[in-house]
């Protein structure tokens, strides 16, 4: 059974977004971290940087792969998770909690409607896994 919290929104690139008013907290899903394997490094933007929906905002590196991270929503980075510098394994251990990556101040609230619901994301993951 996929680990897909019902209070989050998702992208087809396996990021999640937690909408908190005019901000969103962003990370990667349980499925993503499982596919990657042990995460060894996370490269995040600096606070103040601008991110654009569907465009790369950073990189997550595991022993066997490096994957680009795509912004689910556009906006300005207001917080990044400093804990990931010394403990990248948090992404594996707690992808929806302590493994969060950044918080953005939203530029365009209308973009939220384009994100996938938990049900649609769950269906996507079910299709992908063989």
């Amino acid at each position, binding site marked *: 059974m996929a680990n897909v919290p019902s209070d989050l929104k998702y992208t087809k690139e396996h990021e999640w977004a937690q909408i908190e008013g005019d901000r969103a907290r962003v990370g990667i899903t349980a499925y993503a971290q499982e596919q990657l*394997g*042990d995460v*060894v*490094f996370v490269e995040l933007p600096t606070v103040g940087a601008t991110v654009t929906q569907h465009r790369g905002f950073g990189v997550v*590196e*595991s*022993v066997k792969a490096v994957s680009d991270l795509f912004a689910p929503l556009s906006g300005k980075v207001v917080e990044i998770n400093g804990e990931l510098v010394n403990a*990248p*394994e948090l992404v594996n251990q707690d992808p929806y909690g302590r493994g969060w990556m950044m918080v953005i101040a939203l530029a365009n609230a209308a973009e939220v409607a384009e994100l996938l619901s938990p049900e649609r994301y769950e269906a996507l993951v079910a299709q992908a896994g063989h």
Partner: protein
Amino acid sequence: MSRAAPASYDQLVFEVSSPGRVGYSLPECDVPEADPQTLLPARYLRSVAPALPEVSEFDVVRHYSRLSRLNYGLDTHFYPLGSCTMKYNPRLNEDMARLPGFARLHPLTPEGAAQGALALMHALAAALAEIAGMDAVSLQPAAGAQGELAGILMIRAYHRSRGERRTKVLVPNSAHGTNPASTAIAGYEVVEVKSTGTGEVDVDDLARHLGPDVAAFMITVPNTLGMFEPRVTEITEMCHASGVQVYMDGANLNAILGITRPGDLGFDVCHFNLHKTFTTPHGGGGPGAGPVGVKAHLEPFLPLPVVAKRGAHYTLDWRRPMSIGKLQAFWGNFGMMVRAYTYIRTMGADGLRLVSDNAVLNANYIMKRLESHYDPAAPGPCMHECVLSARRQKRQGVSAMDVGKRLLDLGFYAPSTYFPLIVDEALMIEPTETESKQTLDAFCDAMIQIAREAGETPGVIQEAPLTTPVRRLDQTRAAREPVLRWSP
């Protein structure tokens, strides 16, 4: 399961160091002023001495001899690595490369005093051109990846010389990683072309991608599944009809020597891996050499200088205004050229044909003996290498990686695993022509034993290797907390 082998040598040279020991012999200074502090202003001089080891000569000899025994080399172990062409490294090649007239020759020796070296380079280039059906060859690239970069840069220069700005290069999804990487460095957008279920180029997908914005299509022949592309001449014709240049990655040349040639198949440019087909040693990861061959229309763009012959005299030709420039400071890996030239002169045309005949025979023999135990990625016959899948074994809890590790315990190096990307649990096996039937049988027996163990006692495979100097290593730790140098 604990290890079955006794503890092996585990020292680094810094750990056998003792202050005051010396391992060198240099004469005393025979000129009046010997002190750098007098000769040079202080600000240029070293403030803190480097912490290099202090060991005796014998310490060094024993230490590195013991370290060498921690390696599986080709001399001692069969290496079935696909696409690497791990064939015997002839000792004659080593002797010839060490002749002082070659090894002790400075690159900036005046040309008139380096005629032997230039003659060798010229002859090697001509032989490679003949082998590949190309019109000209540059020996300069230091490795296959540099050869690819040279090839793509020449294609870029060619299109520009015709006033065309093409922005994309097509690469099959089965390609070796250096293909897209080299292409990206050359400034192109990499676009993947699909492969069919049996690993061939999907010609319809290729046709959809061809157009005036495509500069080149890069493929490996035989392909990375060890199969000869059946529609290769159709592919090169289609590409040319769209003004697209075709590049052949020569990594698998060992399959077609004296049988067919990239030039005759319609390719505009190809590279050679001297450290694969032409026996120069792998050295634990290099040096290699990656000469590149071109058809006449690309010749003006070759890296410079080009070795030219004027009458009886050889020269380095720098007057090449359309050249893509240089990839190495000097003229290429001359030491590897001596080895490859020695090999080609040892084999001659008949010998090279025997190479490919036996390379193909050996790979098919392995494929036939193993095909009921591991799923072939594509139906045979294969060429010089075969790709099997360990998907059956995976269902029993044994992955391709596990199979490779178990082979280490059984006295073999592992085949290539997880390449090409389009085959799951891929095992790519290239025996080469220098292996005997006895070795092939021993290898097949081992693989069959592993297939049986996967069903009966998978634990012994999952725990492998047990008998190597170290067992499975924590890659995650190495990447999370990189320790990239020794510290006291």
